[in-house]
């Protein structure tokens, strides 16, 4: 309480606060439109729209990892923005009704931007996505591989029937690509190991000890190094602006209230939006089917064993019910812990995200970071689990096929060798 400065609200100060806040905001945003754009947007001037479409596109689509994003036309950007906002559950329909050519809608876009900023740590996430990575990083979880979006709408050329041999061919191609990937990865690790050991002792930060590829590269190539330095400095500017934004954003939100107030109210009855065939619905169905299968299995397994158990154990004395209660409680807690693993917030005990690789001597003091040996353990057990799952699925298929074919007379089914 004592730290808050009691400021006399000076009208000139108050008048300046909003433009300053907006200026700070534009400094943190990736393709910062000018503060003037914001003011125009409030009054729904058409010239504000294209800049805001582009900004929203930047905010909503992550920078592609390849670094080479084909710059889309404004129309395509506008369509992506609409789809992304709808996906996130943006409440206002007026945005969906804006023309695709990006010529209108300044105010609506401003509202959308504010909505995104209000909902979550958008600015911080944007900064984190485009952050300059100085180390050699490796993710320790597989979240990214699991989170890849499902197949896009099938391309037109895949229309029509294919022979199953085409599928076999594609599978073979996939296997080959994985093998190649493995080999390349091994080579890259060997090279990294060399670079790290050749530059040990060079880093000014003692806890790191050696240079990373990026840092060594900047020494090899001063021009590239200059660019890296500039990117770093630009990022520092954005970070400072983000910190300042936190101090100044209140006035922005008050202003956004007025912008919202200036909009005409929307009709209360939602109009019918065209239905698009959903790929994800198939995903939902898959999970439903899996869970149903699991439930059936569990039921089948437990029934007979319960019966056997009941028969053997009958009724016991009072100590029986005490231990029974204890067991029930233990199992209940077990299951709660299990449930926590997939609920919100679960799974954070596992290390996540990219980690910077640092080469140390074996037996170095712990506590500096994650040890590779631990991660290897975790991955090995994960690998084992997944192999079991895959084996089960394949076994299921085998049984099913054998069943289907086995009913036919006169067929001999010779499984391949080497099982």
């Amino acid at each position, binding site marked *: 309480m004592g730290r808050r400065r009691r400021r006399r609200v000076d009208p000139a100060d108050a008048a300046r606060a909003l433009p300053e806040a907006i200026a700070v905001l534009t400094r943190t945003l990736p393709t910062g439109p000018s503060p003037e754009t914001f003011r125009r947007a409030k009054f729904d001037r058409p010239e504000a729209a294209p800049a805001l479409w582009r900004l929203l596109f930047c905010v909503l689509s*992550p920078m592609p990892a*390849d670094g080479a994003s084909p710059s889309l036309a404004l129309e395509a950007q506008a369509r992506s923005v609409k789809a*992304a906002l*709808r996906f996130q559950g943006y*409440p206002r329909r007026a945005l969906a009704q804006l023309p695709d050519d990006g010529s209108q809608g300044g105010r609506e876009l401003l509202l959308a931007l504010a909505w995104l900023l209000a909902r979550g*740590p958008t600015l911080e996430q944007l900064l984190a996505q485009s952050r300059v990575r100085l180390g050699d990083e*490796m993710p320790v979880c*597989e*979240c990214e591989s699991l989170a890849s979006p499902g197949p896009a*709408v*099938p391309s037109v050329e895949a229309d029509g029937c294919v022979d*199953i041999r*085409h599928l*076999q061919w594609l*599978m073979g191609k996939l296997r080959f690509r994985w093998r190649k*990937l493995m080999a390349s*990865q091994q080579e890259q690790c060997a090279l*990294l190991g060399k670079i790290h050991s050749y530059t040990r002792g*060079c880093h*000014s930060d003692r806890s790191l000890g050696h240079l990373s*590829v990026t840092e060594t590269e900047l*020494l*090899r190539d001063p021009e590239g190094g200059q660019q890296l*330095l500039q990117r*770093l400095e630009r990022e*520092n500017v954005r*970070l400072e602006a983000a*910190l300042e934004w*936190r101090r100044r954003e*209140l006035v922005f*939100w008050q202003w*956004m209230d007025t912008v*919202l107030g200036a909009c005409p109210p*929307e009709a209360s009855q*939602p109009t019918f939006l065209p239905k*698009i065939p*959903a790929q*994800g*619905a198939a995903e939902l169905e898959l999970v439903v089917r899996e*869970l149903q299968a699991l*439930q059936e299995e*569990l039921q089948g397994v437990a029934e007979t064993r319960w019966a056997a*158990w009941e028969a053997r154990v009958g009724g016991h004395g009072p100590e029986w019910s005490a231990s029974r209660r204890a067991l029930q409680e233990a199992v*209940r807690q077990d*299951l709660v812990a*299990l449930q926590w693993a*997939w609920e919100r917030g679960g799974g954070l005990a596992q290390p996540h*995200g990219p980690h910077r*690789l640092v080469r140390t001597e074996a037996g170095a003091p712990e506590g500096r970071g994650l040890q590779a040996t631990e*991660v*290897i353990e975790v991955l*090995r057990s994960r690998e084992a689990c997944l192999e079991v799952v895959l084996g089960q*699925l*394949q076994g299921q298929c085998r049984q*099913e*096929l054998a069943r289907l074919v086995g009913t*036919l007379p*006169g067929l001999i089914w*010779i499984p*391949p060798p080497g099982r």
Partner: protein
Amino acid sequence: MLPADCSSRLVAELRDALDSCAQRQRQLERSLRISRRLLRAWEPAKTPVPEPTPGPETDEEVPSSAFTACSPSPQDLKELELLTQVLEKAVRVRKGISKAGGDKAPTVKSESTATSPATRASTRLRASDWTGSHASETKPPRGIRQTRVPAKDLSEHRLVSVEDPACIGRGARAAKLEPSRRSQETVPLAAPQAREVFTLKDKGILLQLPVAFRKAASQNSRLWAQLSSTHTSDSGDAATTAKNHFLQKMQTTSGWPSSRLSPAEVEAEVGRLQKACSLLRLRMGEELTADPKDWMQEYRCLLTLEGLQALAGQCLHRLQELRTAVVEQQLEPWPEGRLPRASSPCGGGADTIRSPPLLLYSSTQELQTLAALRLRVAMLNQQIHLEKVLMAELLPLVREQEPLGPPWLALCRAVHSLLCEGGERFLTILREDEPAD
């Protein structure tokens, strides 16, 4: 031939898998190119060695000028001239001594530095070697030390010694001059002129990061730490209230019920339930393989199985709720051409904002094992996903097709290979023909 919708779905899935593989490969190739280039001999840089702008105090140096070439003033040039003369003299003296039986050729001098960590300490080490052998030439060696070393073999690279005021000694502006490039031209060193090539292997430990970069990097990590620490501080209480108020108002003016689920939320929940399913199945597997010794253990096992069944039921229920919600509220769960996730699903919140944590490895073998396992896990995940999709599409086809002639057998064989052997092996089907009589 497979029916059209089945074909298109399967081909799309396989193409998607191929594309993600290709993307990883592209990234790897890029990294490989850079790493290979680093391990080869480095070509001399085109631009002059960077140097802080000359001036009495360069503490307030503008970072961006750190890499820009600065032209020396006439005074500096004069001093450089003086220095090179001194250098020549020293070389002559040195040569004289080494001819007289000294073993250390100038080239060897620099190699010895490879054994000590390349810090300012190492340059001082070399200096003491010099002063040890040339007691009479106390002043020049100090001057020599600065320009000699960079000029000698590492002309292309930025050694630190020139930037350290302590090393420079009194008023030696010489240290602030651009070494190497110009001195290289003006100093006809009597020493072997073989321009030594820089390889990371031999001289990597002599490298040091430029000052400007170090400053920017430390400022960068400081700012990130600040950003993540104030993330949950109290400074934004009023702002948070204002934000929530704004969001609520947006919701109420939109005319749609606030209980509506966004497609993103639906997808996230389906993902969670998918994870639940695999965890439950895993747990079931554990319970089934465990061998209970007595009735208490058996009881516990059965209770667990029962509990798992209840949880599965709960998840199913939730999924069915989601399904009806999607249908009822006319959601388009996964709109056409949607952008990939803007926010990374992992790294819960604040953690991504800090500097990346460290992953320590101790040998190349370890690193390779780690990377190989990661790839293997990713590959298995992909295989499992494909297996499920293929099962869902192909098994019904085999079941439905009635004509049991050769085409159906061929289909069976192909399906078996895809589903049961990962497409790697094939089985043989022998058909008994009626004896022809």
